[in-house]
């Protein structure tokens, strides 16, 4: 500090302490807000208190707590559930390695998952499905996460290795889950038995991973100068966007099955995945197209001027900026897709919501408990949707520095 600054320093008027200041700034900063606060604070207070009292005294959570496996994997044969477990552990391990290699957002996600596993592993309740083996498995995942972290930290492990791992794991998981007919070790498990969170995650993750590149391709196609490509992309996008998802699901699960010969029939889970993917791709395409339009022409000229060809310009200059510009909209589309997967109930696939419904319908006693079941399912969806939007905000913040012009 220079002497000039020191002599000119004027003391800031004293500020009220943090909490009082926050209350004054946010709840009582105008007469209207003060009025709203006075009216709604008691309402909110009593609502919250009543919900808590209901949840711990009146509510009967049996329909939720009795069937953790059903909610997790549906009717997947209990003897074969270890295959789901290995798939999950592979993902946990890779998550840990990614955390070790890149840190940042992945660290928060990893820690959240690690804590969740640890909490369930040592949950002090008696439950026949939370036996010692299950607790060991959950605890093992925490160790696997940390092991992945340490391996990810090693100098020899490059980001490329982990990306390759992420590329292999989906195929490995699908192979593990389906198995092969006649195999001793991995007998095939029909997808009609798959259900619960497993199906919700498969449809969501598959839908997101497949729809995004298709959406980018469609967005580029719609801006193409080749008339056939442009027409195809435009018709595809507008057709899909003009039709409700339920209709598309029906089309893929019933009409497609009617038209294709029996021997080339596509699995119904795959058909549902195709429907969700194409639906989401059409919307992603419009989001990406908005981003493409936001990239200034000068960027393309600068890329051309240094000798880059059309493909290089697109991959290195245009797409990164376009996707950054519309990242919130794209993540919003992913969250919508995640929630929209509940519609597969209509075509007879038991995702998380479907399992909840079949549990309610399985026992007259449980019909009384549907509020608890739906609330539980809503909370599960909320947690994952919120995690996605949190991730999106962190990602935007991380990319923010470079997008300033």
């Amino acid at each position, binding site marked *: 500090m220079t002497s000039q600054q020191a002599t000119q320093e004027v003391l800031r008027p004293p500020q009220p302490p943090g909490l009082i200041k926050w209350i004054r700034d946010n709840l009582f900063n105008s007469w209207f807000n003060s009025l709203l606060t006075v009216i709604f604070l008691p309402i909110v207070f009593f609502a919250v208190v009543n919900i808590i009292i209901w949840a711990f005294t009146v509510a009967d959570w049996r329909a939720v707590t009795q069937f953790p496996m059903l909610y997790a994997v549906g009717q997947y044969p209990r003897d074969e559930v270890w295959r789901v477990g290995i798939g999950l552990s592979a993902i946990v391990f890779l998550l840990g390695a990614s955390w070790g290699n890149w840190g940042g957002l992945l660290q928060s996600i990893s820690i959240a998952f690690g804590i969740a596993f640890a909490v369930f592993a040592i949950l002090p309740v008696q439950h026949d499905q939370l036996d010692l083996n299950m607790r060991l498995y959950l605890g093992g995942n925490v160790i696997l996460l940390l092991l992945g972290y340490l391996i990810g930290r090693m100098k020899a492990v490059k980001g490329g290795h982990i990306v390759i791992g992420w590329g292999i794991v989906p195929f490995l998981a699908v192979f593990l889950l389906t198995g092969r007919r006649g195999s001793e070790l991995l007998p095939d498990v029909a997808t009609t038995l798959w259900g619960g969170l497993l199906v919700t995650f498969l449809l969501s993750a598959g839908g997101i991973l497949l729809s995004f590149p298709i959406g980018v391709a469609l967005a580029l196609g719609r801006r193409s100068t080749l008339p056939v490509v442009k027409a195809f992309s435009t018709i595809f996008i507008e057709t899909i966007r003009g039709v409700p998802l339920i209709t598309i699901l029906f089309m893929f699960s019933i009409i497609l099955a009617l038209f294709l010969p029996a021997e080339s029939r596509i699995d119904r889970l795959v058909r549902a995945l195709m429907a969700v993917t194409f639906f989401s791709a059409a919307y992603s395409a419009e989001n990406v197209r908005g981003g493409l339009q936001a990239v200034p022409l*000068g960027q393309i000229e*600068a890329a*051309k*001027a240094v*000798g880059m*060809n059309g493909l290089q310009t697109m991959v*290195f200059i245009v797409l990164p900026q376009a996707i950054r510009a519309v990242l919130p909209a794209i993540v919003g589309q992913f969250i919508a897709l995640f929630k929209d997967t509940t519609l597969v109930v209509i075509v007879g696939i038991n995702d998380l919501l479907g399992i909840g419904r079949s549990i309610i319908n399985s026992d007259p006693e449980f019909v009384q408990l549907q509020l608890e079941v739906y609330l539980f399912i809503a909370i599960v969806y909320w947690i994952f949707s919120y995690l996605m939007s949190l991730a999106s905000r962190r990602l935007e913040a991380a990319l923010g520095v*470079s997008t300033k012009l």
Partner: protein
Amino acid sequence: MTSETTNEPIIICQDVHKWFDDFHALCGISMVVQPQEVIVIFGPSGSGKSTFIRTLNRLEEHQRGQIIVDGIELSHDVRNIERVRMETGMVFQQFNLFPHLSVLQNITLAPIWVRKWSRDKAEEVAMQLLERVGIPEQALKFPGQLSGGQQQRVAIARALAMQPKIMLFDEPTSALDPEMIKEVLDVMVELAQSGMTMLVVTHEMGFARAVADRMYFFDEGLIVESGTPDDIFHNPQEDRTKLFLSQILQH
């Protein structure tokens, strides 16, 4: 043509025409540029000077006439266009740095992917160029964190990284605050003195006086007058040139 053939022109433009729909932007431009020459092009806005310089690396397509750059004729042949663009660097009025890449990545992207250099070599050359334009300490920052003058110097380094034979400048100082114009012009003067072939669209007459070999005055898509800076400043022949110079020099 015996011993003089070593001094072959690096740019030959013959009767170049350009239309934007019905608007005749270039009405027959002919120009021959020798290696290491510094050409300054000036004129009122809408005179076609920017359009002309942009036809030289085919950011604009000409519709009649002939443009030969470094022995390659510009036509619809995409491979020829890419070869010409590898040999010509361009600096834009609005810098057009890639905002999502660091300064170093801005400079090394094309050498790595177009020239197929190794990353190490590209980064070494990039750091030398950043030294040359005076901002090596900014290498890891993003364009949005730099001042306008610094950004334009990065843009010059980015163009030079491809080791072009010709540098095109399209009003490089017009978007800059006055106190930043000098730092960019200093870099350009140094570049001119190092023997780079340069075509510069600018109204910086001090720069023209200092380093230009020839000046061209454009108006309404035509070259109205050309000559050495001495001729243009002290003995302009055309009334339009005199009028324009009096307007931009009176301050």
